[in-house]
């Protein structure tokens, strides 16, 4: 059962990802990106990380894809830019990405991943992540958490300033 679900998710995710990088219409690529991200949320669900699956859907599908669709609409050229695949660009790109893929698969096949720390977890996943993120202890992540929050504020202010309409224009 798990295997069947896994292969259905593989087909959906990889089909949508291929369409994202090959379809000439930008808006359609954004819609296929939603399918690919939802497929990945399915993988997280299959792995037992329900909280990460929810975060994936809320942040990516609800936030980033909406932002991308706004950008697609704000930057549509008159006549519509058709990003047709160009043979002198796709062949080198296919070679490089194929080499990356087979290199990664080769490295993975050499590595044996041993299961470690069979710790029984009695807390819920969201609770465990929250305590880990905000604990002040030696294995807590409070400092990176605060740094990332500063980064987010800086990115949002920067985005507003860059995209702001200039006065008198």
């Amino acid at each position, binding site marked *: 059962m798990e295997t069947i679900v896994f292969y259905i998710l593989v087909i959906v995710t990889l089909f949508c990802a291929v369409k994202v990088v090959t379809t000439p219409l930008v808006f359609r690529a954004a819609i296929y990106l939603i399918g690919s991200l939802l497929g990945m949320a399915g993988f997280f669900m299959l792995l037992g990380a329900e909280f990460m699956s929810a975060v994936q859907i809320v942040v*990516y599908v609800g936030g980033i894809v909406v932002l991308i669709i706004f950008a697609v609409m704000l930057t549509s050229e008159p006549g519509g830019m058709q990003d047709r695949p160009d043979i002198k660009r796709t062949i*080198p790109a296919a070679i490089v990405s194929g080499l990356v893929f087979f290199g990664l698969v080769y490295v993975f096949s050499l590595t044996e991943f041993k299961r470690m720390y069979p710790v*029984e977890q009695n807390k819920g996943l969201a609770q465990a992540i929250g305590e*880990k993120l905000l604990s002040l202890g030696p294995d807590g992540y409070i400092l990176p958490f605060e740094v990332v929050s500063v980064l987010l504020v800086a990115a949002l202010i920067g*985005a507003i300033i860059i995209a702001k309409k200039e006065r008198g224009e």
Partner: protein
Amino acid sequence: MMLTIHHYLIVSAALFSLGIFGLLSRRNAVVVLMSVELILNAASMNFIVLGQLVTPGLVTGKVFAIFVITVAAAEAAVAMAIIVGIFKYRQTVDVEKITDLKW
């Protein structure tokens, strides 16, 4: 047949390679950004797969995946602002035509 770590890792490697393919072959800056999102998502998927299957019971992998997702969101916001700004200035988002920094 049991699902092993390698099944998941090969899927995320395929997504990563597709992202690289899009990054190198597309001309529209917005689609290039979508490819970057695919690459970042493959990375966070690796964190979650290894966190769930190699160290079950620990949440470190998921915490790192949350950081990756946060940085991806910040990056998307800034990149969108830059693309919209370039479009207002040049009326194009074709990365081959934006050559102002080319010396």
